[in-house]
């Protein structure tokens, strides 16, 4: 598998598992889980620095060094296109001109579903401003295609609400999105366990982005390893071409040569 490439914009990756850095006990756990996941793309949030206090607190980017990982700043928590654009510009400055971002503009705090119209608006502004956008969206195939046509480098439909761990709620929609896509489709949010990740890949997705499923497991580092294998298992199964489902049984052992 490791010879297979995932291409996002001009960047090339071997891992199809993208991970977040939220909800961990501490930076050491973040570091170990990220390492165990084999992820090459790691999302981070942009937040205010603490003023006039522990200026020496450990920094996330020391645990997840940008020279080793492709940092994917997100616009988590933004409810307007304007806030999302501000966040992306600060992130680009923070990362010395790195222009790959994860755009999410949320619709409400209960579902954390995207606000599709604000997302389309922010997409237009950011593309004009030279960003490469990996965009969080719902699982509507029409919207997914629109975002691709606007120039997003990856489209990231949700599998289920962020942090719900409910798995792929609507495989038909994901399948539809994958079938129509010419950019990578990466399931973002909703995966709960390794088999969910495998299912996403078996549907033909190009990757999966997750955070809570790893960070909120009883043993995050072991779950990170499980997810790594689940993604690879699902990808290989997709490429291998699964057997057809049949309503009826069919023997694995031959009838011929029975002596009874």
């Amino acid at each position, binding site marked *: 598998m490791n010879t297979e490439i995932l291409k996002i914009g001009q960047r090339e990756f071997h891992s199809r598992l993208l*991970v*977040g*850095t*939220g*909800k*961990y006990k501490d*930076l050491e756990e*973040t570091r170990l889980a990220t390492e165990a996941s084999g992820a090459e793309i790691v*999302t*981070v*949030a*942009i*937040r*205010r*620095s603490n*003023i*006039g206090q522990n*200026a*020496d607190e450990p*920094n*996330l*980017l020391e645990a997840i060094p940008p020279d080793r990982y492709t*940092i994917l*700043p*997100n616009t*988590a928590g933004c409810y307007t296109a304007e806030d999302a654009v*501000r966040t992306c*510009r*600060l*992130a*680009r*400055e*923070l*990362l010395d001109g790195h222009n790959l971002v994860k755009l999410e503009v949320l619709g409400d705090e209960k579902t954390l579903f995207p606000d599709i119209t604000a997302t389309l608006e922010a997409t237009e502004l950011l593309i004009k401003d030279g960003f490469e956008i990996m965009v969080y969206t719902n699982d509507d195939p029409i919207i997914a295609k629109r975002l691709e046509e606007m120039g997003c480098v990856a489209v990231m439909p949700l599998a289920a609400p962020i942090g719900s761990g409910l798995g792929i709620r609507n495989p038909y929609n994901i399948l539809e999105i994958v079938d129509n896509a010419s950019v990578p489709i990466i399931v973002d949010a909703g995966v709960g366990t390794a088999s969910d990740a495998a299912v996403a890949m078996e549907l033909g997705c190009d990757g999966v*982005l*997750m*955070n*809570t499923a790893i*960070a909120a497991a009883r043993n995050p580092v072991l779950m990170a390893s499980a997810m790594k294998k689940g993604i690879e298992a699902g990808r290989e199964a997709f490429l291998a071409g699964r057997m057809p489902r049949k309503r009826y049984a069919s023997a694995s052992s031959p009838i011929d040569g029975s002596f009874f």
Partner: protein
Amino acid sequence: MNITLNGEAFECNNDTTIQSLVEQQKLVGKRIAIEVNLEVVPRSQYNTCQLQEGDKVEIVHASGGG
């Protein structure tokens, strides 16, 4: 002179630049980005960017998120 720094009222000398603010906050060399009145200030302009009364300054960094 009074400005707003990361959402809080903040007092500083009239000749404060972004650079001096960063030094004072012991953030030199840290991975941060700075916005004044909703516009990003490139690192190259920290020295020359003079703060004005009432400026809204945001100093941000990367933190854990997904």
